[in-house]
């Protein structure tokens, strides 16, 4: 038993264990997603996060130790964002053609995402710093955190809200869009990427390549739009 404890203490100090655990947890999430007939309710990110949270808690591992391994996966978010240029490039002619619907949906979607969140929260008695942290939650994480700081919000809380928004969007998008009878992959993808950024974009790619490309476009454009819209709308609520 001491041997196992020694091996554990060696492995738990290096990055290999938690990097492998991250990939394994995601493989598990992906397997669950497939087993559930690709149901949007079984989100692979959500399953992986839940499995890892239980594992970290059970093994008494703190997040700092975990992140030393997981950082290699986390780092790839940046290059993957740059790589989204490829589906955009492939769909450039269609995007040029869809310029008017894209711009209209961007303005309406960006304002609705921010204003309705603040209205619901304010109506339920939320105020001050929490409202400022909530305002930019539909933008991709680094943008949202920057905006939140500028508005006097809490960067940590904003990071939490951005992720919750992403997962919510990824889970509800397909049933909601089917309910609305929407069949245009451009419109479906754009709305999901605009509102639930990278996690929504990842989900859109699972559904249809056109939806994925337009989701990437929505995410990129709403990063800019939220920076302009969030301060204006927040000022109406204080």
């Amino acid at each position: 038993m001491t041997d196992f404890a020694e091996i554990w203490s060696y492995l738990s100090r290096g990055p290999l264990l938690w990097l492998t655990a991250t990939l394994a947890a995601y493989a598990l999430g992906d397997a669950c997603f497939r087993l559930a007939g690709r149901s949007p309710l079984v989100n692979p990110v959500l399953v992986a996060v839940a499995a890892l949270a239980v594992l970290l808690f059970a093994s008494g591992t703190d997040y700092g130790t975990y992140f030393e391994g997981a950082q290699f996966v986390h780092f790839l978010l940046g290059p993957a964002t740059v790589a989204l240029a490829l589906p955009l490039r492939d769909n450039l002619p269609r995007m040029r053609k869809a310029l008017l619907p894209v711009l209209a949906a961007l303005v309406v979607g960006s304002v609705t995402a921010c204003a309705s969140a603040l209205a619901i929260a304010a109506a339920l008695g939320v105020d001050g710093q929490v409202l400022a942290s909530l305002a930019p939650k539909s933008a991709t994480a680094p943008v949202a955190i920057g905006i939140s700081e500028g508005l006097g919000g809490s960067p940590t809380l904003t990071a939490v809200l951005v992720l919750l928004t992403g997962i919510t969007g990824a889970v509800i998008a397909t049933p909601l869009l089917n309910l609305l009878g929407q069949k245009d992959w451009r419109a479906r993808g754009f709305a999901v990427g605009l509102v639930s950024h990278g996690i929504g974009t990842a989900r859109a790619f699972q559904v249809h390549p056109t939806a994925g490309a337009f989701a990437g476009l929505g995410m990129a454009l709403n990063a800019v739009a939220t920076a302009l819209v969030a301060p204006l709308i927040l000022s109406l609520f204080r």
Partner: protein
Amino acid sequence: MLHALLLILGCQLAGETVARATGLPLPGPVLGMVLLLVLMAASDRVTGLVRPAAQGLLAHLSLLFVPAGVGVVGHVATLGGQSLAILAAVIGSTALAIAAGVLTFSAVARLTGNTDD
């Protein structure tokens, strides 16, 4: 593969540099994406070069959000006593904004006779 990764990381690095230098409210990777898009629109050779590496990176895009997601679990407590109100705001606004976005896109596409091919 080497040159494709070099291009992708180079675009991100350029994006980070521009974001820092100009104080633009955009993250470096988003600026890097715009730069790579411009390069690919200008040259089909660049597009062909980047394609396999970019497809590899995007194949499991969801995976890349897992470490940040695990970090969030520890901070759900920061929602505090208002957690139900905040959750209602997040879920409600996400549904409303997706609906508003998709309906606007479809309506304007119909009005301007803009159908997908």
